[in-house]
């Protein structure tokens, strides 16, 4: 019998033909997949796997965060945590595409300005009563407001950022200014005194206005608005109020500084302040990391309260990030339990939470929880950071209203047009208010 004949006989005995072998080969991946699925399904019934999404994407941020997550999983062996990170510019895209594709994380870390849209779309799970009580009692009022919408707290605040007047100490000393400006009038005068020219060439500008960036334009102006006794929006979100007299005066101050020739417009990437080309600006605490990395020398950087209008008092705008739980997750209890651990003091009321440790040491940020601020008073006592922390006591949250981002962008454009002298402060604010009220009405603000 020839070899081939023997083989054919063996195949005939076993009933395996070429066709059936090919069919079996094609079906093998499906069988393997089904087996794997059944195994993973069986494992899922016993363990919990939480997917956490943040914008803390650099290696320096991921590593300490993963170490904290590992600390939790070691104490809770049935919990596995997967950290997903994207750059801030892609975060909202990731959230929306995940929602559309049915691949949403269990826990989001998101910018509080997105709350109205997230709540309207039922993206977020309502915190259990214990978590909500903890949040309202353990954070400053402005911080709680920043995590709330429609009278409901939606998550644990994490890093808090607020705005202050940042100035070049050496410039002020050279100009003979004993203290940074405290009022609108003093701010304008100081900007004039600090501006230097070599003939027609500007060599040093008294003030830097951040342009072409909605937060850079609107946040400082809103701080000035509040510090002048003004309001941004009505309590019931039915209309904006920033076009009233206090807002007009705040914008008039800015246009006066521009028209005096005491200001330049730029973006943080231009590094004009770091290079010593400008003397003052209104900026947020997170800017400190860039200043520390520059050649300006932190001993030369001063921080002061927002200048106030007559009869007003310094009020800084603050914004924040918060942890929230997806409304689509089946692991709601596990997610809130993890967030409770993450944001609670480790070992007693005067200790820091894991989140507080991460924010202060890895990010040089200000933690939102009051006990974390106290526990890290040494780090937060830094001469640059401390004024920002102190300002939180009276700071107000960036208005969390429907269409907030669109309103902010519209306001930015109008404010810039006033800087460039296209129209008067009153006209631009009225134009912005008209657009903002329409947006509020469309988005169900009233």
């Amino acid at each position, binding site marked *: 019998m020839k070899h081939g004949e023997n083989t054919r006989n063996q195949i005939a005995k076993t009933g395996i033909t070429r066709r059936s072998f090919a069919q079996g080969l094609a079906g093998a991946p499906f069988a393997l997949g089904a087996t794997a699925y059944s195994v993973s399904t069986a494992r899922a019934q016993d363990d919990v796997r939480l997917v956490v999404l943040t914008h803390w994407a650099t290696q320096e941020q991921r590593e300490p965060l993963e170490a904290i997550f590992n600390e939790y999983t070691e104490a809770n062996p049935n919990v596995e945590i997967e950290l997903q990170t994207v750059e801030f510019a892609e975060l909202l895209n990731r959230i*929306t595409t995940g*929602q559309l594709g049915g691949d949403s994380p269990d826990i989001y870390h998101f910018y509080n300005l997105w709350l109205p849209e997230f709540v309207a779309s039922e993206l977020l799970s309502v915190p259990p009563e214990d978590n909500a009580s903890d949040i309202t009692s353990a954070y400053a009022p402005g911080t709680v407001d920043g995590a709330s919408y429609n009278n409901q707290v939606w998550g644990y605040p994490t890093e808090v950022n607020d705005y202050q007047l940042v100035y070049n100490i050496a410039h002020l000393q050279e100009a003979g200014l004993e203290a940074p400006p405290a009022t609108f009038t003093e701010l304008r005068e100081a900007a004039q005194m600090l501006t230097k020219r070599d003939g*027609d060439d500007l060599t040093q500008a008294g003030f830097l206005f951040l342009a072409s960036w909605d937060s850079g334009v609107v946040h400082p102006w809103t701080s000035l608005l509040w510090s002048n006794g003004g309001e941004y929006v009505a309590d019931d979100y039915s209309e904006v109020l920033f076009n009233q007299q206090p807002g007009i005066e705040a914008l008039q101050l800015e246009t006066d500084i521009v028209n005096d020739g005491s200001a330049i417009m730029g973006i943080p990437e*231009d590094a004009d302040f770091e290079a010593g080309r400008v003397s003052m600006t209104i900026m947020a605490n997170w800017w400190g990391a860039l200043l520390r990395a520059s050649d300006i020398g932190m001993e030369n950087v001063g921080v002061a309260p927002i200048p106030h209008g007559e009869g007003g008092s310094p009020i800084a705008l603050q914004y924040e990030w918060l942890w929230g739980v997806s409304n689509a997750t089946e692991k709601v209890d596990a997610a809130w339990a993890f967030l409770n651990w993450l944001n609670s003091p480790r070992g007693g009321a005067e200790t820091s939470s894991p989140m507080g440790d991460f924010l202060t040491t890895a990010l040089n940020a200000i933690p939102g929880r009051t006990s974390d601020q106290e526990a890290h008073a040494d780090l937060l006592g830094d001469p640059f950071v401390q004024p920002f922390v102190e300002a939180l006591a009276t700071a107000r949250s960036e208005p969390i209203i429907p*269409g907030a*981002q669109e309103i902010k962008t519209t306001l930015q*454009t109008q404010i810039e047009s006033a800087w*460039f002298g*296209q129209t008067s402060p009153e006209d631009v604010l009225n134009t912005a208010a008209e657009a903002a009220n329409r947006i509020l009405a469309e988005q169900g603000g009233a």
Partner: protein
Amino acid sequence: MDVTTAAERALVGQGRVRTGPRVNRRSLAGYAFVAPSLILLMIFALGPFLFTIWVSLHEWNMLTPIGEMPSVGLANYRYLLSDDPLFRETFVNTVYYALGNVGISVVLALGVALILNGPIKLRAIWRAAFFMPYVTAPVAIAIVWRNMLDGNWGMVNGLLDRFGLPQQPFLDSLEQAMPSMIAVAIWHGAGYYMIIFLAGLQAVPYDLYEAAKLDGAGSWRLFWSITLPLLRPTLLFVIVVNTLASLQVFDLPFVLTQGGPVNETTTLVMYMYETAFSFLRMGRATSMAVMLFAVIFVITMIQLRLLREKE
């Protein structure tokens, strides 16, 4: 002349090729070969296009399921055309940018190509030098030029100052921001079109120039009567492609100016992006996309008709 068709006719005339079923089989084979690409095109181009039109008739923030989008009919289009001044402004900005970029870069690229097609020294180096900006990433170019065009401390103002010329605000000026951006775009893209024109020029038969010169034709007559007509297909390609790219520009203004100052350099695609991904108004953004498509389609058809070679 279609060579294949002529050859076929010759062979048919000689009785060496049969018509009828064999020609149909060739057609079927052709369809079969293009079918995979056609199917991919339907799925990944036509499908999303139709979906875009569908979404433009709804309100959608991308957080709610697609099946729950409320229908608004043509409300998005009505809003953009009558109640949105920023849409009109960005449309005008986009047309301004396209006219400036296409108009100047085509003429410049053709002029440089004519020069570099001639017997000049170091021709290869000159060609490489003109082409090099094109191979640089637009984002990198925008970052560098932003610093160079700084209104107070940029390198360009430094040069102007050295020659005793007045400093210019460039990107910080409402009037100069767009022309400055157009200049950067021309600097970046002209080299690419120059290469295309060079290829077209080198396809022009030299004996036509010789014959014309024998008849006494000067440089201008040579260019107008020989070069330009024979360069028509290349010119058509360059203008159409440049127009398409200019009307959809995003990366350059996004990095160079962020659309400022005061939206003077905000293009329609930038506004569309912001409306979709910052404001979460996908219905309105897709309406802009549909209208931009319609405009580009009409402009392209007009260009093709005007520049198409007469047969």
